[in-house]
């Protein structure tokens, strides 16, 4: 990071460092100033043309010009961080399936880039040139004093009067001027809160719709290969039985029994499919009893403590996301932890950690610990699913245990 030397009381060394910083600031200013003008003006003209000619060109020129603007803005973000320690995150929205033109023009960051470009022509010029100017003026002003004095020019005090302040000022304000330019850039080039929020939402929405898509495919495949095929077999057996019932009643009875078996298997498959979509207990009784049923079916003792009341229920999608999350966490406990017992706590919390009050589920077990979110995709899938509601999943699992998985879901 460029800036003032750290050892202020370091005598000659400190002054040498300060001198170097001053020269560096002057040099960097001399990069910023011409770039502001020589890249800024042509890009502004190009952007005005590309946008103005959109009716004629159909927006063909917009993407390359905006691309170049973004390139310059990214360069600015880079030097702001490297030269002045002013970090600027990239604010651009992910494309997320939209048309290229709509994506570029619909992103507020595009327009903020252009605003920066306009304002940076004077600001970048002024703040960029000043550090070098101060140094130059000071050197020339002070340097001319001996000559002027020797030639008994009566104006020599003017040289000293202008030159000395500039020379004294330059080391102190030079780096600050470069930093000021970076701060101005950050005001326009950093993501706004709204932009950041949109960006998060766009990403989570993409993931959720991807998950939903693959879930639909799975259901379709299961129905097609399972229940549908079996019901077709039922029809076939019944048809053959109808055909045979008079001349070969025994064969017909065997076929009827076969048809009944097929229909039973089809129903069993439909049941397990339904359970994976929305477990009937959850639909009928809500989260508390669904968790109790889950615990009841577990091979190790699971205590369920829930103060989610009979009268109040989470909105259905959140409730089932939470249920499947807890079920997944419990399945992990049974599969990997070697725990002798587990506990599920579900309670409503009214602080502002996630939203305006939220439901928290903690799944605790006394197993070996060492669980890791980056391994296996079960809990990662749960985390994705919760993210759709601004929910969170956190894991506390030191080696040796115990493990606690915490799921949080906002209520509103």
């Amino acid at each position, binding site marked *: 990071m460029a800036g003032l030397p750290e050892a202020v009381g370091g005598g000659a060394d400190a002054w040498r460092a300060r001198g170097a910083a001053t020269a560096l600031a002057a040099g960097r200013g001399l990069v910023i100033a011409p770039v502001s003008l020589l890249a800024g003006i042509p890009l502004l003209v190009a952007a005005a043309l590309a946008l103005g000619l959109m009716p004629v060109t159909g927006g063909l020129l917009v993407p390359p010009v905006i691309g170049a603007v973004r390139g310059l803005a990214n360069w600015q973000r880079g030097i702001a961080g490297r030269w002045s320690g002013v970090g600027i995150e990239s604010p651009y929205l992910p494309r997320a399936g939209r048309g290229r033109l709509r994506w570029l023009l619909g992103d507020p960051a595009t327009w903020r880039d252009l605003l920066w470009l306009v304002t940076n022509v004077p600001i970048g010029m002024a703040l960029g040139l000043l550090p070098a100017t101060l140094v130059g003026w000071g050197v020339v002003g002070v340097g001319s004093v001996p000559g002027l004095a020797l030639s008994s020019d009566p104006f020599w005090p003017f040289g000293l009067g202008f030159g000395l302040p500039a020379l004294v000022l330059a080391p102190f304000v030079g780096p600050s001027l470069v930093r000021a330019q970076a701060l101005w850039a950050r005001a326009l080039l950093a993501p706004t809160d709204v932009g950041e929020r949109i960006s998060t939402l766009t990403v989570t929405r993409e993931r959720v719709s991807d998950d939903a898509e693959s879930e639909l495919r799975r259901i379709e495949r299961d129905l097609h290969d399972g229940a549908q095929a079996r019901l077709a077999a039922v029809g076939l057996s019944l048809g053959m039985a109808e055909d045979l019932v008079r001349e070969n009643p025994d064969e017909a009875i065997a076929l009827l029994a076969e048809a*009944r078996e097929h*229909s*039973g298997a089809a129903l069993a498959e439909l049941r397990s499919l339904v359970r994976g979509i929305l477990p009937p207990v959850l*639909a009928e009784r809500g989260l508390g*009893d669904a968790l*109790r*049923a889950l615990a*009841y079916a*577990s*091979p190790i003792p699971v205590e369920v403590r829930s103060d989610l009341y009979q009268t109040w229920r989470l909105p259905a999608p959140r409730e089932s996301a939470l249920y499947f999350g807890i079920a997944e966490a419990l399945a992990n406990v049974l599969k990997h932890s070697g725990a002798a017992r587990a506990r599920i706590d579900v309670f409503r919390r009214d602080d502002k950690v996630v939203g305006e009050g939220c439901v928290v589920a903690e799944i605790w077990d006394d197993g070996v610990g060492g669980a890791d979110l980056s391994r296996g995709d079960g809990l990662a899938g749960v985390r994705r699913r919760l993210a759709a509601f601004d929910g969170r999943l956190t894991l506390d699992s030191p080696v040796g245990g115990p493990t606690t998985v915490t799921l949080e879901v906002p209520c509103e």
Partner: protein
Amino acid sequence: MRVVLAEDQALLRDGLVRLLTAHGFEVAVAVETGPDLLDALLAERPDVAVADIRLPPTFKNEGLAAALEARRQVPGLPVLILSQHVEPLYARELLSDSAGAIGYLLKDRVSNVRSFVDALRTVAGGGTAMDPEVIAQMLARRSRDRRLGSLTPREREVLAAMAEGHANAGIAARLVITEKAVSNHINTIFAKLGLLPDLDGNRRVLAVLAFLDAA
């Protein structure tokens, strides 16, 4: 034998009425909703009721709630619950008053007419008939109950068959052993579970409850 029937899907309701009538039952009334079921059970006092768990108006567990409420007012009123799914938690709730005369079967069991009718008669006679699916779910779990853990595999088979609602003769036929052997096994099971002969309530029901609770 008089039956009250509660089923909201017309196709299945008509089919059940036909099936029951053909096997000598008299369908006193066939209703569609949970509140109607409760009214009918209290007014008709049938020999046995057949009810779907999920009924209008809420399509939640109205049928189960109506059956439990009716049994609170009329202890031991025989009820056979039919459902698209079976849930051990519900089985536990149905049996919790230890009065017996409870059945809980998947709807598809109806297609095996003879065993369905047998189950209905068992329930009407004060016995219990749990769906093999419930039994299978309970058996799949490692036993947490030490008393149940002390049963031999054969005794567990007998207990499972008993939970399904089979009488001693049925269990004997199924396991290919003599009825005498079955009744010996059952006595050992009762002893191991600590169910003494002078105990209040149906010992077969209590044994099944112990089985369901071993989790």
